[in-house]
């Protein structure tokens, strides 16, 4: 099913306000999320519209840099960072890769979810489209052509993030729909620190600059 916000929704009649207000509005809506937890339904479609994959993901966020993205199906994979280190753990493959994490280099989607709208506003034109009293659609279009995306659309209902649609330059689309959302509920910091299981067969790829220090499971 196409995302809640389809491009066909004509923007002409809905109130479009100046881009700076749009950025401020988007900033405020995202900034309200000091912690966020949701079940994410991900739908990836390829350029001709065929479904590549549907996945279920558990997502947790804690400002400023706590980020937890666990794919539950169709295969298990955890990506988690505390802002310093990024872990990518694939339990069925018994593979763990660890790398230093620089939040500034994070990918657009992570920046969006992390609420770093200032950085985004430098690279994207942000247009706000009011769909209903508290329902807003933000359409991001890259300012320069070297972007990875043609367009990114965030959709808020009752001021709460409902979905994000990412349209790549090669036509592939990723739609994230957020369910069972919990905003600003307490989430422990330890959630964003990964401890490797004690398993001799675990294949650990430690790419950290200073990876001489103990890996977690030793």
């Amino acid at each position, binding site marked *: 099913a196409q995302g809640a916000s389809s491009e066909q929704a004509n923007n002409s009649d809905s109130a479009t306000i100046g881009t700076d207000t749009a950025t401020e509005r988007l900033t405020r809506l995202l900034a309200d999320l000091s912690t966020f937890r949701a079940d994410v339904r991900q739908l*990836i479609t390829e350029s001709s519209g065929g479904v590549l*994959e549907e996945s279920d993901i558990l997502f947790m966020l804690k400002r400023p840099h706590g980020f937890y*993205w666990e794919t539950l199906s169709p295969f298990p994979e955890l*990506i988690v960072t505390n802002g310093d280190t990024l872990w990518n753990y694939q339990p069925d*493959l018994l593979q763990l890769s660890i790398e230093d994490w620089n939040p500034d280099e994070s*990918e657009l*989607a*992570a920046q969006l979810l992390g609420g770093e709208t200032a950085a985004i506003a430098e690279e994207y034109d942000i247009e706000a489209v009011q769909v209903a009293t508290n329902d807003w659609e933000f359409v991001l279009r890259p300012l320069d052509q070297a972007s990875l995306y043609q367009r990114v659309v965030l959709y808020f209902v009752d001021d709460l993030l409902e979905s994000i649609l990412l349209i790549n330059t*090669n036509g592939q689309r990723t739609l994230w729909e957020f369910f069972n959302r919990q905003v600003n509920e307490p989430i422990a910091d330890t959630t964003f620190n990964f401890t490797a299981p004690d398993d001799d067969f675990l294949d650990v790829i430690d790419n950290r600059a200073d990876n001489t220090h103990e890996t977690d499971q030793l």
Partner: protein
Amino acid sequence: CTGTPRIDAPVNTEWEQRRQVLQDISHWEFIGSLNVRDASDAHSSRIRWQQQDETYQINLWGTFNVGATQIDGRPGEVQIVQQGEDPVFTESPETLLYQELGYELPVTELNHWIKGIPAPGPSSNLVFGESNQLRSFQQIGWQVSYMAYTNFGLETLPTRIRIEKAPLRLDLTRLRWTLPDLQAGAGN
């Protein structure tokens, strides 16, 4: 597993039949994960490969929408469109893929290896497991090993493959196959 008998005896009719059956599957699709490792780096992505006779479409994408690539191939021409890049056309996919992806993806041979058989042309050191399932072999400088097979409808196909050519190691894992005559679609 215990030492498997090396059945690369001159004529193994059962294997030749098996090989022909797999060779004749010309319409197939699988989805799975591709883990790429070389001396210093490792990254993984999802892969979906659709093959219809000589034409194919391979989609690669990373978790969190990173590095989405689409490769469309027909005899004599391959188009590669990477996220953030203009489409690129080539006749020989291998060289271009190396430039675009940063690792070798022997697409032409992989089309056969993926089903559990060597590509046409010389191959060596075929090692078989029970019921004539190919365990490993070498071809064009690659070592191909089959770590797991699963039944998909009437066919038994690999679900975990490792192909190595130092320092590169490609692991194709979590493979779920769809074959046209399968009513129920792929098992797991």
